[in-house]
């Protein structure tokens, strides 16, 4: 398997070359681009839905414990202990992915329909399917890759833009000591409205 960052870059360059040769003003071409984009999004969602189905079928109730680091951006002061099951964790991951497809769909809708850009529509079409196939959760459940090494739950946070500034890792902690300490720290009991 090649590094997804590298393949993404290659894909982007190729798509850029292709898009240069396309006449975006031509309504026929535009129609095909639109259909292609929507089809790709549909495929991506379908992949996630199949994964979802597999997760519910497997119904893996193994207990999973980890400590989520505090997120100062959303005003959390304390690290959050999480006690969950593999099934629930996986479902959460896959739902997050599905949600992100819809968010990008909304963004694209705005860019394309309101601001009349067609280029990003073309560039984004294949990459959503690609990222669906490359996501951890799909790898585990569709391709049967064992959930160890890089795919060990909880998944490592993708190196984001803020990771460099934040200092210290934003990854969840799983070592026995910190889990045990956080677990009994009494941070629960937030008010339900």
């Amino acid at each position, binding site marked *: 398997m090649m590094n997804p960052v590298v393949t993404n870059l290659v894909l982007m360059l190729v798509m850029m070359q292709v898009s240069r040769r396309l006449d975006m003003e031509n309504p026929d071409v535009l129609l095909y681009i639109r259909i292609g984009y929507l089809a790709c999004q549909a495929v991506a969602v379908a992949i996630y839905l199949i994964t979802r189905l597999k997760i519910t079928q497997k119904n893996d*109730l193994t*207990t999973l*414990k980890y400590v989520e680091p505090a997120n100062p951006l959303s005003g959390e002061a304390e690290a959050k*202990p*999480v*006690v*969950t*099951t593999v099934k*629930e964790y996986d479902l959460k991951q896959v739902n*997050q992915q599905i*949600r992100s497809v*819809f968010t990008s769909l909304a963004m694209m809708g705005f860019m394309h329909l309101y601001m009349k850009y067609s280029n990003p529509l073309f560039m984004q079409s294949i990459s959503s399917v690609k990222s669906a196939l490359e996501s951890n959760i799909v790898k585990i459940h569709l391709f049967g890759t064992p959930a160890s090494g890089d795919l060990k739950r909880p998944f490592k946070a993708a190196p984001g833009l803020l990771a460099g500034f934040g200092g210290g890792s934003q990854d969840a902690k799983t070592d026995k000591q910190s889990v*045990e300490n956080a*677990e*009994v*720290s*009494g*941070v*629960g*009991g*937030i*008010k*339900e409205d």
Partner: protein
Amino acid sequence: MIIVSSTKISISKDISNNMGSNIIQQALLLISKTPSKEGAKGYYQYTLEELKSFTLWERIKINDWRLEFITLTFTIAFVFLFKLGDWYNVRLVSTYVKSLSESFSKNFFLYGVSQDQLYIKDSSVNFSSYASGRSNIAKVNISFKLQPRHNVFIWVMENLFAMFSETVEPTEDRVDFAITPSYEGDYDNFISAIVSKLGMNSYRRYNYFLSLTKTTDSDKLPESFVFMSEGHEFQEKTYTDKLANALNNEASSYIRYIAFTDQPIERPEKVRECEPHRRIFISTHFPSNKDQYESLNNILDAIFSLVDDLSSKKITFKPEALKKVVKTRENEISKLTKAEEELKQEKIAEEKAKLKKQERDRIRSLSKAEQLKLEKKELEKKQRKTQRKQKMRA
């Protein structure tokens, strides 16, 4: 269009009463862009003389009632759906309450809010019931919280939002039992719970007492449950054979948790709120069939007799385990006192700053000569201080 019609209105007096709805009608027409039925004349196309010659019924007939029909249909539909959702919620609750009367009427003198009423409906989503009159148990409060099925808009919106955002959680149907043991039957403080694995993280998030416990899997439990307790000792001894027999793997779909605790549900903010208050919380969803109700009855039975065992000291705990519990409580209290202390210090510092500022303002308001005098005094004071220091050193 509106301007034209309003000039017409000004001609005839009796039409102007209708102006409000007329504007809405015109707007509706503008939106739909379909003029009233082809061929047929609209109300305002008739001249005053023509209208005068009609009978009342004829005039009603020529008016355009579409907007009224739409409004009426929606209102009726909404009322109907409201009643339907409300009826469904009531049915859920009454089935639940009736199905549990097997266990409750066996155990309690009074089950229900009065002799002939099993529950009270507070609203379409909130119901409550009560049981009392049993040795070792002072009372049982049962509260129901259901999905807002009566209000279709909110119900649909809630579920839709939950699909697209993590922060919105849809309301779940739930029933909470709070069993308060009687004061005579005094047993030790501890937290121990049997929790369904489906959604256990959120139970820990919303229940302070659960977030003080350690989660452990056990071979004794059905695999869809875990123990959350303050010690091995507590979970083993409170998991009686009777309870084990009643609990099966399927039960995790309707049982949320069964918890023994002396600490509150909401996280305490004052030391006073940490005061131990022994209770047994049982939280469930609605069972979906008779068999499930049957085992829920058995589970409740097992819990009631477990309270007897605790109160009669048939179940006791090792002092080491209890010591650990006390330590956890002290730890939590010291966290609170520390926070309170910090808050106090902050307040004192704030007050000091305020006083200083007042003093400065006072000096500033004095005349120039007086200000100079004060400055001189200060300076002398300082000098004397340094001199004294030098003397001491010398």
